[in-house]
């Protein structure tokens, strides 16, 4: 019996099959969870037009009434992922490109200016530094942070350089402004308060984790969520901490929202928290069932929150009760990362498959033109359908099989020696 078993174990075909099977299993596991940068741009509505970054690298202007495309412009010849939401000021729309590492200003369907003019933002090694956060416009300047850790201020009309301020880490956060102070969070765990005119540092507030969330300024206080699982309230003038909320179980990624002295902060632990703006005391906790990375919006007296699985909740600011407006999306692999957008009545939700959903904030019913696909060019499929991940993952799979072949050769050699 044992001899028979040994013979089976020594069987070349069996071993080779087992090995190849192992290679396939391992290769199958390889792409799981590795993703391609595709973007999660939110939108902005101005004069009945929704401006949004599509996943095929275009800025798209849509008529909110019928969902018709008014115009679209690709950022570059090749597909550029867009993470930041567009910002509108006057007749210009501002948007940052991820792969291109540039800030763009559009006037209707024409590019007004691009910065940097010749090439792209770069990091200390000369590699392109991406733009992930959005821009904010004030005092005739456009402010934004770049992955190389630098905050830039440009002339909003011409795109001319005004000042820059280096931080100690990457910047993925969209800045916020209060008066003449700019607030921006960095991966170096600090919240920076900068003079909007000169870029000089006014104060810094250090947390214990990286900051990706956009700061919220409300009632002379800056509210900022951090990767240390805490939400901080900081005085806008002095940078002194007022309180901190400690009960969350994961990162704060989404921007908080304020209404009537209540701060609504959602967390990647799948919960939403309503906190007293003055004391930081927890008023209510909402179980949303899935992580929340998309910043919520306020529509009338309702805070609209979308979870990653696409479920949408409306929290009544009067009685602090939540009700589910929409169930999760049908396909498990399609997620909601992009900040929600509203025109005051309708909520717009950009999903990871490139579709735009438009639904009523009161009852969750979709508009008759919803959903529409924002992307027209082919973009990488969702992670679960990918045979490889970020660009070079094709290489990793090929490498895996190549090394598998080499191992088979080694194996065969050993057996050849036995059989020759």
């Amino acid at each position, binding site marked *: 019996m044992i001899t028979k078993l040994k013979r089976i174990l020594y069987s070349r075909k069996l*071993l080779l099959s087992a*090995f190849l099977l*192992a*290679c396939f*299993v*391992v290769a199958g*596991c*390889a792409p*799981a*969870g*590795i*993703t*391609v*940068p*595709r973007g*999660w741009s939110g939108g902005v509505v101005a004069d009945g037009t929704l401006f949004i970054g599509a996943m095929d690298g275009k800025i798209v202007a849509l008529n909110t009434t019928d969902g018709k495309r008014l115009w679209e412009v690709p950022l570059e010849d090749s597909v550029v992922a867009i*993470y930041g939401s567009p910002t509108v000021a006057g007749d210009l729309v501002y948007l940052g490109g*991820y792969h291109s590492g540039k800030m763009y200003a559009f006037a209707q369907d024409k590019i007004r200016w691009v910065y940097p003019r010749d090439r792209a933002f770069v990091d200390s*090694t000369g*590699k392109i530094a991406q733009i*992930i956060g959005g821009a904010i416009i004030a005092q005739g300047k456009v402010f934004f942070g770049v992955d190389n850790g630098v905050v830039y201020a440009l002339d909003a009309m011409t795109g001319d350089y005004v000042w820059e301020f280096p931080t100690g880490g*990457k910047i*993925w956060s969209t800045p916020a402004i209060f008066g003449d102070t700019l607030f921006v969070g960095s*991966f170096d*765990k600090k919240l920076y308060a900068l003079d909007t005119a000169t870029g000089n540092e006014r104060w810094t507030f250090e947390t*214990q*984790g*990286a900051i990706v969330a956009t700061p919220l300024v409300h009632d002379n206080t800056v509210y900022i969520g*951090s*990767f*240390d*699982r805490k939400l901080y309230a900081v005085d806008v003038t002095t940078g002194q901490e007022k309180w901190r909320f400690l009960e969350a*179980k*994961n*990162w704060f*990624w989404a921007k908080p929202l304020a209404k009537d002295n209540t701060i609504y902060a959602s967390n*990647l632990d799948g919960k939403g928290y309503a906190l007293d703006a003055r004391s930081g005391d927890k008023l209510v906790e909402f179980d949303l069932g899935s*992580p929340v*990375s998309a910043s919520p919006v306020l529509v009338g007296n309702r805070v609209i929150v979308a979870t990653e699985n696409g479920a949408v909740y409306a929290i009544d600011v009067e009685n602090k009760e939540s009700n589910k407006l929409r169930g999760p999306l049908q396909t498990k692999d399609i997620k909601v*990362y992009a900040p929600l957008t509203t025109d005051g009545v309708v909520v717009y939700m950009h999903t990871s498959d490139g579709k735009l959903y438009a639904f009523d904030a009161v009852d969750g019913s979709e508009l008759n033109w919803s959903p529409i696909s924002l992307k027209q060019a082919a973009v990488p499929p969702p992670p679960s359908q990918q045979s490889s991940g*970020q660009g*070079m993952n094709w*290489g*990793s799979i090929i*490498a*895996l099989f*190549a*090394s598998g072949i*080499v*191992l088979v*050769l*080694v*194996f065969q*050699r*050993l*057996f050849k*020696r*036995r*059989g*020759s």
Partner: protein
Amino acid sequence: MSIGEIWDLIILAPLINVVIVSSYYLFGSFGLTIIVLTFIIRALMYPLTLKQLQVSKTMQTIQVQVAELRQKYAKDKQKLAQEQMKLYKQSGMNPLGCVLPMLVQMPIWIALYQSIMRVLATEPEAFLHLSQHLYPSWLLVFSQVPLQSQFLWLNLAEPDRSLLLPIVVGGSMWVQQKMTTIPSADPKQQSQNRMMLWMMPLMFAFLTLSFPSGLALYWVASNIIGIVMQYFVTGWGGLVIPGITTGKTTSGKKIKGQAVRQMASPVAKAKVAELVSPPEEGVGDGNGVQRQDRGGSYPARLGAIRRKPGGGGRHRRRRR
């Protein structure tokens, strides 16, 4: 539960959390963490590696008997195959032992690659997904990411364009491969050996150009550990560096005894010179001197062709 979720649960998530915590205690250096992680993985795989090395060593020691069989059954291939099979079984060899450590390491490479892409915040979606892989009870892991991507001259999230790392990866792999190469009298086998000797190092050097250097750092550390382990089990093997590896051996008494028995055969005697100094290998000094010491010591009466004066003496003296 999908295969991807199982993978995440049992391999990726533990690796990510351990890497982050280790990095905290290793001065926040992700590079140092990868090196320490390699040590731990290689230590855990020690039994498998030992098996691999033993197979390699046994292969070396029974070469003479194989040659003897080849000569004896030159015209009867079937009988030759049977006898060889018998010989391998008698030697307790399992060729699977050679490839198992590499197979086991493949999921580790993949998991390490995925971890690097996440913990260094190389792309937004992957970094966002990282939050769902962190252990809620390990408070430290949440605030430590993203990890430091700079290590020496390397950005661990990016391939090393300076070519230095690919050279080190290829070089260290070549040395390791060379140490394990089994000499053969068969010209076909020799050419296959030569191909194997260069193919793997070149392939990995090439891969280093496109993979994050964090993964390449793992390969380098793993190769160096492998070389050291190999040295202590089989000596320098097929590697010959004039003035350094000449005559060095770490073989034990048992192997020596085996070799003595093998060499007692006149056929084997005749075949030995051919086996141990194949000119095509281009690694000997022309007379096969160094090759004799690869799998173990040979009888004193073969000393003239076995080693240079003094070669391997240190170990022999130690045994005495």
